[in-house]
């Protein structure tokens, strides 16, 4: 079972890497969207430092949403999803494997890019550890919840826009507690309570999101 999940993860990662443009597009979006803020509000270092945690996370959320319509749509269009549903691996684990692959090709690059963009926004030094921790806990949640949303919109017209409408409200707790952790760290307060809440959201989404996603996929094939 682990082996079958590994196969799906390897296949999805390989497909994304071969197509190449997906990762670059998401990273470029993250970069450009973040860079718009200094241009919009002016290059005042203090203002930027005050906004940095929120801006970074909002842009990361939007970049993650941008990548979601590829998650199941290609497999749905070419019939692969039929075969994955009929394959020996339970559909819930297929969804989980695809979530892991999605995180590797989007969550991980976002984590790596975030500190560079934090420099651009003059994030106070104390915030970097909390940025990394909140990204490490938060991006898997984005992939998990996003997968459930992407599965729900399969077969819908204009699925991409619909995913954003469905998923962004679900991302609000992640945004609140991730930014809370960073702001606490910057203010010299412990970030741990916020991070623990993020971890508990992750622990809840880990079993529930694949289950919801699998149910939505079955519905879309019916």
């Amino acid at each position, binding site marked *: 079972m682990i082996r079958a999940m590994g196969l799906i993860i390897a296949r999805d990662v390989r*497909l994304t890497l071969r197509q190449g443009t997906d990762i670059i597009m998401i990273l470029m979006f993250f970069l450009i969207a973040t860079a718009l803020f200094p241009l919009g509000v002016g290059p005042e270092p203090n203002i930027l430092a005050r906004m940095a945690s929120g801006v970074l996370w909002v842009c990361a959320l939007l970049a993650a949403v941008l990548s979601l319509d590829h998650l199941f749509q290609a497999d749905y269009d070419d*019939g692969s999803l*039929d075969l994955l549903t009929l394959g*020996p691996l339970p559909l819930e684990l297929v969804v989980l494997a695809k979530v892991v692959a999605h995180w590797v090709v989007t969550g991980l690059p976002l984590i790596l890019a975030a500190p560079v963009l934090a420099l651009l926004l003059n994030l106070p030094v104390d915030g970097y550890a909390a940025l990394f921790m909140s990204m490490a806990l938060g991006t898997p949640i984005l992939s998990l919840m996003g997968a459930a949303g992407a599965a729900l919109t399969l077969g819908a017209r204009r699925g991409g826009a619909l995913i954003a409408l469905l998923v962004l409200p679900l991302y609000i707790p992640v945004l609140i507690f991730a930014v809370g952790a960073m702001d606490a760290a910057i203010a010299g307060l412990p970030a741990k309570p916020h991070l623990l809440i993020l971890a508990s959201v992750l622990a809840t989404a880990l079993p529930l999101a694949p289950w919801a996603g699998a149910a939505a996929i079955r519905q879309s094939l019916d």
Partner: protein
Amino acid sequence: MANNFPVTRAFRGTALDCIRGDRKVFQGLNFAVPAGGVLVLSGPNGSGKSSLLRVMAGLLRPAAGRIFHSGAEIRDDPDAHRVDLHYVGHQDAIKPALSVAENVMFWAALHGMRNDEAVQAALSAFDLRDLADLPGRLLSSGQRRRANLARLAATPAGLWLLDEPSVGLDAASTQSLEDLIAAHRKTGGMTVVSTHTALQLGEVKTLALDHFEPTAPSILDDEGSA
């Protein structure tokens, strides 16, 4: 509850109804495929051949009726049903960015085949050895179909559900498909195939789907409304 199939291997359905949108596609449909048997689905476009195959695979839920695979009802034991099943639909599930060999190998490995020779043999069965390293996006529709059919040869499964498998195939590949089904039958494998072209499959049973059209024109008054 696995592995009692050598004794009771059979695939049958009773009193199946299928509703798509607001329209009844067929009702009261019965079928039975014995071990080694081939069931050919015939009927005009839209008569419900693809829907029936998706119902048989478990992708669609029938509105009524029951389906048994080797004694167990597939609703009760969907895992045992899926593990012993190959489904070939209209779409070929070939990834443009993966080579032919990688495409076939992925599905074979997912079904637990670790043996590379079996994959090579499956590629040879549809004359794909020369195309093995070609990415899926460069294949013609017939070649994509052959790569999809190679899944059948790569891993064993007791039940094959084939939705117009010969579409786009040339004469030699159609022959390969017929040979493959013949070999599958010899081992007691069951096949349900919908087709418009006459496949040479030896002794087969035919199920004409136009016999199962609803007696009332539709459950709603206007057929085209959905």
